[in-house]
């Protein structure tokens, strides 16, 4: 029975230099990647990169293996990344994703990030469906000192969003962050609703939303690829937020998402507190994939 620990020892043995890069070692690398949710296809790709690296002597000794792979992964995650757009206020950020991934919490943390930069922040309670979703956002609004635009539970989310954009323009707030109800990407009526919300934002403020963040739970497996695909089609997703990385899940599926759909990760969530949001760091992330 090969445990993760056994593997670290093995890598150490390799570094001391009394083992060769053999198939068994490549099997172990495969195991690390697969158990980090990197997925079969992307793992196969990465391993073939490693084999090529061995062949063309980019990897000459076992201890060069892990850095080589980490470098490859970082490169995938970095490529084509663009900085946040500079826009005339209000900058509008729409937050979308399947149920329970951490959208509302992320909005609280993100709002706090902009507040700390001295910006005024407004939140829109676009989840009118889930029980007490509005109250949850209001508590976050109180915490960070942001105004919350809301209607009653069960009302039309498009109307809330319309009001929020008008109000953000009139009040000249710097950042408007829009919460949306959790929805599975396979539910076409709910995805239509999202498209409608998107259209209204864009109609009321050309160029907006300036960023659409798709929130992914790091515990999620390969289904996240479908989520990214279908949310991308409905709402032009510009970046990902990977939440719950304070658990033991590695969130490796974002590598597949980046290489297949070219959507960059912007933020990571590492807890439930107001400060638990960090900018995504590809190098750190690739290193953590191999940590115990």
């Amino acid at each position, binding site marked *: 029975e090969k445990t993760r620990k056994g593997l670290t020892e093995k890598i150490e043995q390799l570094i001391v230099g009394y083992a060769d890069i053999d198939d068994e070692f490549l099997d172990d690398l495969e195991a690390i990647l697969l158990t980090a*949710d990197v*997925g079969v296809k992307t793992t196969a790709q990465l391993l073939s990169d490693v084999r090529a690296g061995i062949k063309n002597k980019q990897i000459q000794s076992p201890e060069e293996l892990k850095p080589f792979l980490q470098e490859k992964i970082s490169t995938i995650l970095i490529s084509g990344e663009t900085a946040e757009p500079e826009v005339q206020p209000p900058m509008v950020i729409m937050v979308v994703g399947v149920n329970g991934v951490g959208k509302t919490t992320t909005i609280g943390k993100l709002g706090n990030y902009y507040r700390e930069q001295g910006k005024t922040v407004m939140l829109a309670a676009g989840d009118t469906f889930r*029980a007490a979703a509005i109250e*949850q956002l209001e508590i976050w609004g109180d915490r960070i000192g942001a105004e919350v635009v809301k209607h009653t539970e069960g009302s039309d989310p498009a109307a809330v969003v319309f009001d929020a954009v008008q109000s953000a323009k009139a009040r000249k707030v710097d950042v408007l962050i829009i919460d949306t109800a959790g929805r*599975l990407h396979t539910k076409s009526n709910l995805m239509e609703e999202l498209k409608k919300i998107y259209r209204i934002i864009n109609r009321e403020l050309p160029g907006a939303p300036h960023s659409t963040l798709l929130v992914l739970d790091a515990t*999620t497996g*390969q*289904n996240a690829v479908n989520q990214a695909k279908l949310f991308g089609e409905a709402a032009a997703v510009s970046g990902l937020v990977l939440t719950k990385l304070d658990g033991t*899940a590695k969130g490796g599926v974002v590598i597949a998402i980046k290489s297949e759909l070219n959507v960059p990760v912007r933020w990571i969530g590492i807890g439930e507190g107001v400060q638990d949001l960090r900018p995504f760091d590809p190098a750190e992330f690739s290193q953590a994939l191999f940590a115990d």
Partner: protein
Amino acid sequence: MVFEGLADKLQQTFKKLRGRGKLTEADVNEAMREVRMALLEADVNFKVVKEFIAKIKERAIGQEVMGSLTPVQHVIKIVNDELTELMGGTQSRIAIASRPPTIVMMVGLQGAGKTTTVAKLANLLVKKQSKRPLLVAADIYRPAAIKQLQVLGEQLDVPVYAAEPGTKPVDIAKQALEYALAHTRDMVLIDTAGRLHINEELMQELKDIKREVKPHEILLVVDAMTGQDAVTVAESFNNELGVDGVILTKLDGDARGGAALSVRAVTGRPIKFAGMGEKLDALETFHPDRMASRILGMGDVLSLIEKA
């Protein structure tokens, strides 16, 4: 779905041996490569896949191909049978205590669906078994968690016990129990805060509640979209607390749901219900056979085989 390819791939693998009588080791190995890939793509845990494949190989090699089946269908049948068996029988019920109230505690990671599932379960118990449940709001951490349960309770017309602000979850649970006895509620469904399995303090809180109110059932709520980590999570909750059953949520999407197999394999506990939507009537009996074919991603092939 993306994965309908498994049957095709297997078909190609087996083209050359159509009509041969026995499954050779080489044939089976070839087929298992595809099966392994399908299971991993469905998010079945890496180690669980490994053990499963080894078991299938052992069973399949040297077997006579059944009369009306092609070799590929035969292998699929073996895989499917084993998967279904691993997933356990249908046990969609809550063990009712001989002396009421029956106490059920819902536990799991953040956002898995505990609060919603508490309400769904209450709905089922009222409608199908004429029970008189009490919902208990023992999540004091998440913003508006208590309110969420209260709204759901109102929708169902089922009472919700919420304590004074500042009351510890273990005391909330104890008070709720007294309340249930005083108001002849025969089921007590405790909603707990989402927590990470590695958070010692919060895991201790669950152990304290368990010690004080002795739930008849501790149900672990698992999101069907969970990946490889499902094993670690389920193992931790089970080791720390002892889990009596599992509820798999968000099966109304297109997740293949390999976590079902992983969780079942590491805890040995039955999956009791499946969450099939956000509405309060969307809790269904869990069907191991359907789950097996969902994980393999080939319902059509299986119904063909069943007819054979």
